[in-house]
């Protein structure tokens, strides 16, 4: 068990692992994304009230779900970096931040596009939407903080603290629609009990959520490989791995 965990801390091992993993996960992700999108956008039935405009859910919800889950990945990497001082954890934290920011941005933009025809407004200062905007700022803040320091170790420490402090926002985003009166409706997919979304719409949505998780994993690993290429340019193992 510990052996496997230790391997992830080794740049040469991780570089080879990520190369292999991306090779397998990238096609799988493309297939899942294609299946989910075609199924959701063409074959799933229209909604009884919103008609076809609800179909943006197949992008909006997966992006938002993975943006939230990705924050925990970043915060966990931050914790490992802070406590065990493992370099690969810094690399992981740095790789997650822009991907999470992009997914949060997609969730906010698709939400605005969805909000205009259904609610009647692009933007409302609702608890869910505002806390999601804070998530975007947290991700962008981590990216900016990494760039702000000359010393990468000091940068990693600052970013780890920021991402750990920001974890409080995740349950707030998730529960905001239940704790406060908001315009955003409560969750349709329920972990316990029957979901409030019909099975014919739920299955393509779940496929796309899976596809977005794969997308996240693939892009983060590619990002980490790029960082390793940058920081270990002259390492013998890297020359070997690239050739």
């Amino acid at each position, binding site marked *: 068990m510990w052996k496997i965990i230790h391997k992830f801390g080794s740049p040469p091992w991780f570089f080879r692992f990520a190369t292999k993993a991306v090779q397998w996960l990238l096609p799988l992700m493309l297939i899942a994304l294609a299946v989910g999108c075609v199924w959701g956008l063409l074959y799933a039935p229209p909604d009884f009230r919103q008609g076809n405009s609800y179909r943006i859910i197949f992008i909006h919800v997966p992006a938002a779900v993975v943006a939230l889950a990705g924050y925990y990945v970043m915060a966990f990497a931050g914790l490992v970096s*802070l406590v065990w001082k493992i370099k690969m954890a810094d690399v992981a934290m740095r790789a997650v931040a822009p991907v999470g920011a992009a997914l949060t941005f997609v969730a906010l933009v698709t939400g605005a596009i969805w909000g205009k025809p259904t609610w*009647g407004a692009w933007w409302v200062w609702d608890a869910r939407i505002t806390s999601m905007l804070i998530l975007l700022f947290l991700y962008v803040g981590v990216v900016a903080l990494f760039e702000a320091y000359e010393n990468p170790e000091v940068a990693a420490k600052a970013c780890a603290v920021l991402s750990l402090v920001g974890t409080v926002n995740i349950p707030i985003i998730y529960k905001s629609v239940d704790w406060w009166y908001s315009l955003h409706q409560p969750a349709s997919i329920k972990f316990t009990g029957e979901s409030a979304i019909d099975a014919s719409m739920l299955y393509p949505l779940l496929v796309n959520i899976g596809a977005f998780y794969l997308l996240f994993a693939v892009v983060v690993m590619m990002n980490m490989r790029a960082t390793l290429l940058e920081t270990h340019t002259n390492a013998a193992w890297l020359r070997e791995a690239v050739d």
Partner: protein
Amino acid sequence: MHPKRKQRLTLALAIVVLSSTAIGLVAYALRGNINLFYPPADVVAGLAPVDRAIRVGGMVVEGSIQRSSTDLTTTFQVTDYSGVVTVSYTGILPDLFAEGEGVVASGTLQSDGSLLASEILAKHDENYMPPEVAEALEAQRTSGYDTSMIREDAGAS
């Protein structure tokens, strides 16, 4: 575990717990401001300020929508099933605005307890289903069948 690492782990967990507590307390203290709208019951009870921009949210009462024949003014009632507020609004309503559906109206409360709205937002619920399923559910509801029985029957067959 190495004592130095243990110390750092405690510190990291303390950061998470303390910052969460701090932000949790702030959010709890500001809960009135985080709520997007007042429920009609609070407005009826006089908890909402008069002559200031507020939002009121609830369900549009069935049969309460009255449209003016000369301009775009619409008058309707909003309820949370324990209070009712009359809203009047001049302008174009969102597509999902309908009787029995959720709505958030922003405007100023008049001295007679009605809301003069400047913006109407439709609030929809978390239920998504194909039109046929909605029709079937509606048919069950109006024919007075116990829907839980029907669902069990359908599951068994």
